């Protein structure tokens, strides 16, 4: 039996009338990256804050490495670290001062604290920015100093709450690389995200939550199998060819083809049971058939299902998100 980093049963948090977390059961195996996927307001942050001992649950139980987050809060705090959704370092202080402050609070003596700070800044490529106030850092640098601060004590469990929301693709890749290295060194990572793509790349298991409830759980493969491997987006040169294209696509993809509001656009969900390779091959065949039929294609894309599509597939209704993932 593998050790569990997190185990919750019937976890509840109520704000007034709002059941932000409503009977959540999670089991996070130690030593892995676990993704919690959900739209805005799903309760991700609330759940993470309870696990990190910042909020007291209103019902149910939560254990971190077997320790109760309420009764053994201090023991839990010793082993976890949280990188919040918004900066969790002091913006008025410099990068170095922040790290020294946290090192001192974790028991490092003065010279050792400075060494630890310098070592972390170096590892996160922030040496040049050591003496600059964090409020003058770029978005990517902020995220890095934040993660550096979180691994200062080499936690056994690291919570990353939407670590890449608002980052550019390059900074996002850096965060992904960091997460992979951190987990390879033996730290369990629980990350929340709004992107299936991110969870798929990093996590070995994913929990999908909505309205504070678990609506699906499994490996990325299992999850995608229940959703469909991905979707094909096609844009034609000529709107007049759309019906013909629809016939070709539905035959080749073996799936219903949806006509978009845009008169030259079509989309279809490929049902390849979570097999990315097979989905890609099928999509390639469909593209070749369109060309053979003399249909001019301006744009052809095979993408992962968006969060919206995930929710549509799992709940038969779209995710209740504000900025609908297109």
């Amino acid at each position, binding site marked *: 039996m593998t050790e569990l980093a997190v185990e919750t049963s019937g976890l509840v948090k109520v704000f007034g009338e709002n059941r932000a977390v409503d009977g959540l059961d999670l089991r996070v195996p130690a030593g892995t990256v676990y993704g919690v996927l959900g739209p805005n307001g799903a309760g991700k942050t609330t759940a993470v804050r309870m696990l990190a001992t910042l909020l007291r649950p209103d019902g149910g139980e939560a254990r971190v490495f077997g320790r109760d987050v309420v009764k053994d809060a201090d023991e839990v*705090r010793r082993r976890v670290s*949280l990188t919040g959704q918004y900066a*969790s370092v*002091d913006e008025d202080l410099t990068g170095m001062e922040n790290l020294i402050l946290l090192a001192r609070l974790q028991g490092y003596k003065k010279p050792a604290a400075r060494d630890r700070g310098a070592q972390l800044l170096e590892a996160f490529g922030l040496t040049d920015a050591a003496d600059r106030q964090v409020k003058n850092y*770029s978005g990517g640098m902020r995220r890095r100093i934040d993660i550096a601060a979180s691994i200062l004590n*080499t936690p056994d469990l690291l919570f990353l709450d939407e670590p890449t929301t608002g980052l550019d693709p390059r900074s996002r890749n850096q965060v992904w690389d960091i997460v992979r*290295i951190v987990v390879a060194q033996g730290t369990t990572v629980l990350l929340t995200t709004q992107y299936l793509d991110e969870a798929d790349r990093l996590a070995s298991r994913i929990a999908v939550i909505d309205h504070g409830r678990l609506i699906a759980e499994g490996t990325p493969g299992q999850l995608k199998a229940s959703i469909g491997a991905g979707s094909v987006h096609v844009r034609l040169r000529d709107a007049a060819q759309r019906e013909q294209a629809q016939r070709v696509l539905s035959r080749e993809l073996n799936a219903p083809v949806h006509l978009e509001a845009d008169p030259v656009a079509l989309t279809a969900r490929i049902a390849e049971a979570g097999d990315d390779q097979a989905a890609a091959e099928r999509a390639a065949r469909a593209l070749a058939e369109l060309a053979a039929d003399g249909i001019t294609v301006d744009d052809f894309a095979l993408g992962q299902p968006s969060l919206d599509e995930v929710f549509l597939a799992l709940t038969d209704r779209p995710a209740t998100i504000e900025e609908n993932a297109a």
Partner: protein
Amino acid sequence: MSTTATETTTSYVPAPETLAAVLTRGERPPRPSAWSASVTFGWRAMLKIKHVPEQLFDVTAFPIMMTLLFTYLFGGALAGSTTNYLQYVLPGLMAQSIIMITMYTGVAVNTDIEKGVFDRFRTLPIWRPAPMVGYLLGDMLRYTIASLVMLTVGLILGFRPSGGVVGVVLGIAVLIGYSFAFSWIWTMFGLLLRSEKSVMGVSMMVLFPLTFLSNIFVNPKTMPTWLQYFVNANPVSHLVSAIRSLMAGKPDTGALTLVLVAALVLIAVFGTLTMRLYNRK
């Protein structure tokens, strides 16, 4: 500045070896003592003063203004001459100014608690009140600065305390110690109230009557009897009597005892309430 920021972002590639080296699971250092954690938070407060020195405006300009204003406005009328009045009023003015600026503690707690960094502090395995005590340690530095500024202005204007250096230093020490205890009221309100504005509002409501309806400006004997009851019961009056007596070189042990008791009660009551709110936040 922004150019270097972009450069650092774009050129950085996380290196597995260096990151792995940082993540070694050696012995974790033992957790810091309550005192050491509090002092570390006090150090944070000083760093904030270093980075945002404008905040010292409150503890320099305001006290200078108070001293000049009250000495010259009331001096002639109340004591015949400004120098005579200064001997009476300066210890009290010091107390008033410092008690007034304690409210910035509440404002600082209130603005800070909304920020993510507080979540990080609260997930650390440290003595729970340490962040709050750290604020107050930093604030004690501000109170010291304000006291010294007022003392200097006072000395220039003709303040000549007969208690000498020792008396003045003891007086200021009592004042700062009491302000430390008093500030717990504001850490509580800082955690309790929703906005900075409401913290300010409540502070004013408490501080104005407390400091003006006291023996700071005039001898209570000149007041109507009903008001004397309030003034004589007001802890600020006892504080001012204690400071005055020390600075005059004739320590009033009765007042000093009352001040000590009041300080301990304040810490016990509002310290407990603060920590209760802090743990629940």
